[in-house]
């Protein structure tokens, strides 16, 4: 019980998020997703589950997609993190964001940041995936609204162009 009531050790955690040096003092047990959301106020990264199942929390760490609810912020000190807020540049949507818009790849938009992050990372590994490869690549990302058809279409449209 003692450990439960213990308010953790506060640690300073620095990392680069969306190209900017960031720092916050947080409890050592703080998940990356809550570090980003509650402490850096980057609330685009969402939480959809508590079992690492849904992918709503997907971000890039060093260019790789990671479910940010599965890592402690302290584990990725000094890392280079990109969240959905870092995808659009100079007021222009990232091509993957634009594809989701063009193909109606989102409805409520809750899964969308995670989908976009997972999809861009998928394409960085396989620039021209087949439909089956896209579906397999996004298996860890759940969407309750779209039935996935237009999400897959969005990703394929970017793949086909690249």
């Amino acid at each position, binding site marked *: *019980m003692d450990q*439960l*009531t*213990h*308010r953790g050790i506060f640690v300073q955690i620095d990392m680069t998020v969306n190209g900017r040096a960031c720092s916050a003092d947080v*409890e050592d*047990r*703080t998940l990356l997703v*809550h570090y980003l*959301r*509650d402490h850096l106020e*980057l*609330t*685009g*990264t*969402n*939480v*959809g*589950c*508590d*079992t690492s*199942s*849904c992918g709503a929390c997907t971000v890039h760490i060093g260019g790789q997609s990671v479910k940010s609810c599965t890592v402690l912020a302290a584990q990725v000190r000094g890392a280079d993190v990109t*969240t*959905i*807020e870092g995808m*659009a540049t100079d007021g222009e*949507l990232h091509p993957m*964001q634009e594809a*989701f*818009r*063009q193909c*109606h790849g*989102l*409805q*409520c*938009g*809750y*899964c*969308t*940041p995670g989908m*976009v992050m997972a999809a861009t990372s998928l394409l960085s590994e396989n620039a021209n995936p087949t*439909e089956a490869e*896209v579906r*397999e690549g*996004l*298996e*860890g*990302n*759940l*969407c*309750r*609204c*779209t*039935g*996935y*058809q*237009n*999400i*897959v279409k969005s990703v394929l449209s970017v793949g086909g162009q690249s």
Partner: protein
Amino acid sequence: MTIMGTPRLRKEDPKLLTGEGKFIDDIHAHGELWMGMVRSPHAHAKIQSIDTTEAAAAPGVHSVYTGAELQEMGLWVAPLPCAWPVTEDMVNPPHYPVAADEVRHVGDLVAVVLCDSRYGAVDAAELVEVDYEPLPVVASIDAAVTDAVMANTDISSNKAYSWALEPDPEAVDAAFAAADHTVVGEFVQQRLIPAAMEPRGVLAIPAPFGGDITFYTSTQVPHIMKVMLAATTGIAENKIRVIAPAVGGGFGAKLNVNPDEILAVTLANKIGLPVRWTETRSEAAFSTHQGRGQNQKIEIAADANGKILGIRVHLDADMGAYMMLLTPGVPLLGSFLYTGVYDVPAFGFTCDGYFTNMTPTDAYRGAGRPEASYAIERAMDLLALEVGVGPDEIRRRNFLAGGEAFENLETASTLVFDSGNYGPNLEKALKLADYASLKAEQQRRREAGESKQLGIGMCTYVEICGLAPSRALAGLNYGAGGWEHAMIRFLPTGTVEVVSGSTPHGQGHETSWSMIVADKLGVDPDDVHVLHSDTAHSPLGLDTYGSRSLAVGGTAIAMACDKVVDKARLIAAHQLEANPDDLEFDGGMFRVKGTPTAEIPIQGIAYEAFTAHNLPDGMEPNLQEQVTFDPENFVFPFGTHIAVVEVDEDTGGVTLVGYTAVDDCGPQVNPMIVQGQMHGGIVQGVAQALWEEASYDEAGNCKNPSFLDYLVPSPMEVPNMVLDSTVTPSTSNPLGVKGAGEAGTIGSAAAVINAVCDALSPYGVTDISMPATPQKVWRILRDAKGGEA
């Protein structure tokens, strides 16, 4: 009409795509306290004692309250609301936000902690010690029906109500007496977890002085919430502002008035600090209502040709532990649809609602109608087998109006269907799916004895939506009306504000409403701004559920636009010194017929109306109009869905390999959005058919509350769907529109299970319960093959 009917990209998307959309958990208030929920681990128990000492001493804890303490504090003036007491004598023991002496489902609240951090609240809640005396548990409908054990010590029978729709019981008896064929279908609508991707959450912010309270909640129903908060908490309604921020999916699960919502508002009001909470995914199985939960029996009497003579239906419906906002009414919403798209001379429906010790049930995408459509469409396949004709043929023989176009047709279930044209819709779907080739391929695989057999199933559904004519709701004893409100405001500089009482959570209302207004007023859709989901901005409304937004809310907007044009015409005529009747309005411009140079744009009129320097005598300044539209009738979208499944006889695995849907929701404002609604809806119905079930053990524990074992489909499980439509305008509103939000779910579960049964039919299998898991299919095949699989 130039913009309506075309696919148009959504206004909502840039925000949502860049992470700028603000969902409930993204919004914070200075000094906020997190609620940590103490929930019962028992499905039914007496609370003996609660010790909060340790929790109260935990770091960051502000206070801890037990149910009994809250009750004494007098935070509420009434129990949680049930707006739909379906019968005069419905049993509904009072249900307060936190249990004081008896818990009735796992997850029932027993105490609440207020703490200054997200993690701290959860930790502190774990420190509350509760002694329970376990009571016997009712963990299924079957157990509830026997009344061997009561789900609530305050009741003497688990049966809460009996409701009947029996226009002519003798005619039904006569139909069965005269029948050449009768079929009986007994189906289980398993409990489902709605699982909107965004968990629910709340944030109540009290004003430092004056008693005002601003309540953010991830809800589909901010307007209904405001009324219910006032009625339940005793806080004056005009002190309450409810805001639904960006809402990450609802599917019915966010149309309730939940214990956490009442708690947040009353505690914040009491202590003068903001109070918040966000459910975790696993907690949602207990803190948010579930869907379905019915045992259905449907009987069809038919003549020698398979022409239906009568239908009789009985439901035993699982209310769960408590009557939530619409719980008892959900089965009734389906009652009128058990006759489907068919000409049924005699019909009778009865439903008993039972309390159990499980999470309360309430609306889930389709609410009563997917259940109805499943029962009649499964039973039609049974009838086809019985009569010895194909599933398409049995449907053709029974379509209302002989499968031809009709308007305003009264059915045996006493409703008047607005419009339909079922025959061509079916034929279009059969052609699009290439039904004949599919059947040939099925035959080939059967003859070749392949291990992967093909099954093709169809569902010709009709649904009832556009809720609702207020008088019809009165007839069902529903506690509110079914109208919707809209206001159109021209701003002085020529842009338009639309105030709508419907509340989107992914449906793209801002886009669709802008399209309607753009067409009606001849303005650019980008010049239209839609205000919604905040009771301070849009004070009147009845929100979004039951596929009502377009048919009721969209109609109100179109009608308000017409009123704006009417007023603008008078001003234009005044300024152009013409007779109003001599003006034409086209593309946003008023012109004197025959005098093309005499013209004035509607934006110019808006400015004139604002300055009010030169208006017709007696006219009020400003160009704004409002309409509250109360429809005369429901709308009845319909369609044909055809599912193709592959059943692996070795493993029992079912793979959905093809899906074709031809839906008719009348004219479509934005076909892109309609298709998106269909895709998502179809997959939710497929998921019920094949994967999803909230399963409970005998002690009343939900065995699969998290996404680890509650199988929401991933992109891997579903194929691309082929969609098309027919267009049969409704007679219930001037736009002729119907609804599209639930149709996919209403059509798909039956189509998929019909397909699975079709695949297994060579083995004499005629039914399989949902979800048709590999294990179930494998066992059925093993048994059908005489024990060797």
